[in-house]
């Protein structure tokens, strides 16, 4: 199974260092607006949620891109962006169902998470373990986890 970014909102402190690290690696500036990851704040429940590209299996951005600047890498599962090919029509920005595409007018390019070609800078900068880059659970693993919970609930001694 491919590696991916695992976000744990319960561990996030809201320091927003990931945003700065991302914008620095993507655009050579410390500007959270040019970052592919952004932290959403929920003070009422004391949670911070880092939001970034989910690397969809059937990405809308790839479907609407007319010049193939956005491509889904079948091996790694990452949706890659080629800024040399991009013509700046900004269709992907409106098409993303999760709003995780940003268009930087200054750079004339889309800011999108590509997991830094397998070396995510946001993960490196996160000191609290809210962002992790690791092997994702396969569907079978997920089933096993759920089945284990059932076992614990209904197994011997449980009832």
């Amino acid at each position, binding site marked *: 199974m491919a590696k991916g970014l695992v976000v744990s909102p319960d561990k996030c402190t809201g320091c927003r260092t990931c945003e700065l690290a991302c914008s620095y690696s993507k655009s050579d500036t410390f500007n959270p607006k040019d970052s592919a990851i952004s932290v959403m704040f929920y003070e009422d429940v004391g949670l911070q*949620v880092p939001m970034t590209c989910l690397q969809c299996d059937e990405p809308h951005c790839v479907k609407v891109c007319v010049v193939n600047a956005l491509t889904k890498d079948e091996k790694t599962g990452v949706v890659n962006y080629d800024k040399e090919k991009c013509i700046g029509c900004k269709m992907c920005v409106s098409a993303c169902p999760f709003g995780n595409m940003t268009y930087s007018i200054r750079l004339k390019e889309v800011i999108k998470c590509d997991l830094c070609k397998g070396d995510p800078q946001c993960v490196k900068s996160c000191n609290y373990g809210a962002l992790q880059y690791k092997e994702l659970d396969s569907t079978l693993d997920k089933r096993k986890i759920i089945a284990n919970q059932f076992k614990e609930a209904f197994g011997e001694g449980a009832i």
Partner: protein
Amino acid sequence: MKVIINSKEYQGLPGETLMELAKRNNVDIPNLCHKDGIEGQGRCRLCMVEVREGKKTKIVSSCVYPIRDGLEVVTNSEKIIAIRKNIILLLLLKTPNNDYIKSLAEEYGVKAPDRYVDYKVKENCILCGLCVKACEKMGTSAISLINRGTTKKVSTPYDDPSKDCIGCGACAEVCPTNAITMTDKNRIRTIWNKEFKLVKCSVCGKTFTTDEALQFIESKLGKKEERICDSCRKKIISEKFKESFKYF
């Protein structure tokens, strides 16, 4: 396929042009009308290189020249640089006030003789045709190069607002000299004499794109989309995250 560029050997892929090979290997060939993802046009002529075949040499524009096995290419000979300087001079005379062309001229040490330059000229377009190609790629083809000779320009049919334009602004983004203006003012987007009413986000009420662009996306995705801006979409999904982590 082996191609020698500036006496260094590179491995070419079948069907590639010289420009693509050079770009892939970080060999600098200046160009104005080339963009990856759009076929070469050979229009700006700035990408001229010298190709050696046996004893003969010829000057070709690298963005449309397909590579062949054993090709020998020189990108920075004196002859080539002289040609480039000439082209830049002509561009400078056409657009004397354009920042990008001015910086290019400075880089190559090109100065236009004062008696030929009309500094009042407000022209920025160098007729590279990238905008036309970008519009074609979008499938809209709202603009094209019209007329011939000195009156040649990029425009919509009869300079009227085009019914095909979706107001995406790709033409303005690809323009190397920033000759195309697109303005968003008072919830109206103006480009190519056409006025678009910008769509309001159904959540926050901010305007974000044109209705035509959203229809384009819907036709590509084959389903109806809600009129929600990207930052509100992000909020909606992060709200769901928050709900599931609230009781941790």
